[in-house]
């Protein structure tokens, strides 16, 4: 065997660097014993390989040493393989990390859907509130409309009443000292109905009421109390009155008018 050719072939390098098969390893072991030049070449190559590996030195995070010292200090049988290998642990840890990611993602989805749910629930509540308000407004508008319609009907009826040819208008003016008062009467001579419009009449004091008198041949006849009046007070008299007057009387009215308390008086034009 040409030992020099063997030394220069690269066979020793392939053994030192772990790329040779068992047969090649066995041959080298044998040649190292037999030939000092092979042994020397082997040692040189080892030195070269060590130097090149040292050239490739990189920084190791300090934490690794601490962890390692903790591992070798633990009272584990040095020969047992029961303890999982650290690299496998690393992979498990990576996989666990993935699970953590998945869990975090799931949690985010849950929170997002909860937030969306709350948002839509609030939107629903707001919309429902708006809908109820609209419904209420609509109802109010309808009621207003009914009121207006009723009012219109009333007014139409009043206009009809007032424009009846049998209706006579009598203006009751304030008596001396009470000239600011004024009342208008619309007297339907055919139906005896009286519609009283209080143009200017003060609010009756508590415990008092206004009373209308029909004056027939100089004598006053009770023509009713001014109560439940809206625009008009509705009264009636079947007398043939020549004049009308209003006095302030006690609540419930009087048999005879209190002349000192007369506010307005008006003649019926014949």
């Amino acid at each position, binding site marked *: 065997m040409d030992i020099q050719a063997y030394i*220069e072939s690269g066979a020793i390098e392939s053994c030192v660097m772990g790329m040779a098969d068992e047969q090649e390893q066995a041959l080298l072991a044998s040649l190292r014993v037999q030939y000092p030049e092979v042994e020397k070449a082997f040692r040189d190559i080892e030195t070269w390989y060590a130097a*090149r590996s040292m050239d490739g030195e990189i920084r190791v995070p300090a934490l*690794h040493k601490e962890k390692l010292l903790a591992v070798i200090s633990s009272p584990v049988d040095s020969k047992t393989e029961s303890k999982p290998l650290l690299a496998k642990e*690393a992979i498990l840890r990576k996989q666990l990390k993935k699970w953590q990611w998945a869990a975090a993602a799931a949690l985010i989805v849950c929170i997002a859907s909860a937030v969306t749910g709350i948002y839509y629930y609030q939107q629903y509540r707001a919309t429902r509130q708006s809908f109820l308000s609209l419904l209420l407004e609509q109802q109010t508008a309808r009621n207003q409309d009914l009121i207006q319609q009723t009012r219109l009907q009333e007014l139409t009826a009043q206009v009809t009443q007032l424009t009846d040819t049998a209706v006579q208008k009598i203006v009751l003016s304030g008596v001396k000292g009470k000239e600011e008062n004024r009342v208008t009467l619309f007297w339907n001579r055919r139906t005896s109905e009286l519609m009283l419009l209080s143009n200017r009449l003060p609010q009756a004091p508590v415990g008092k009421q206004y009373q209308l008198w029909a004056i027939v041949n100089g004598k006053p006849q009770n023509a009713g109390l001014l109560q439940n009046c809206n625009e008009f007070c509705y009264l009636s008299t079947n007398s043939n009155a020549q004049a009308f007057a209003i006095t302030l009387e006690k609540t419930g009215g009087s048999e005879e008018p209190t002349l000192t308390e007369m506010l307005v008086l008006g003649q019926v034009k014949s």
Partner: protein
Amino acid sequence: MKGIQRYTEEELVASLQSRSQAGFSYLYDHYAGALFGLVRSIVPDEVVAGDVLQEVFVKVWRNIDAYDPARGRLFTWMLQIARSSSLDMLRSKGWRNSQLNNSFDDTHIGQAGSTQLPLKDAGLRKIMQSLKTEHKEILELSYFQGYTQEEIARILEMPVGTVKTRLRAALTLLRKMIPG
């Protein structure tokens, strides 16, 4: 090597065999960087490479009695353990699965490109870059990916003898590039 060498190799081996933590600490301080460089040239993931390195030192610690100085230097033995542990990691099911799913991994997202490729700018890989493609290719498959000569013969569709010759030629050239 770093610091003042306080141990000869025989002393260091004896210290480790007597379960001396000081000896182990010295071993780590002097060889961890180089071993990590080798592991990182094979295992692309920095975190996994760190765990492989740890595994290497645990194996050295647990198997120091099996170390035979007649067969080679302590460092050569450790380099062989580091290389085979790294290759074992690349072949492990866990690693393969983690590579399939690696798009979900924060390390990959955060540091893509920087930690996910084997180191090419240090050690043997660096010298290897100046070799011809056929030599680079065979060293990559054999040393860094751990394929046997028979497997390489199948991959490259050439006789095993040619693989052996080409590998040895590549190693001889590699050694001539930076002698000593």
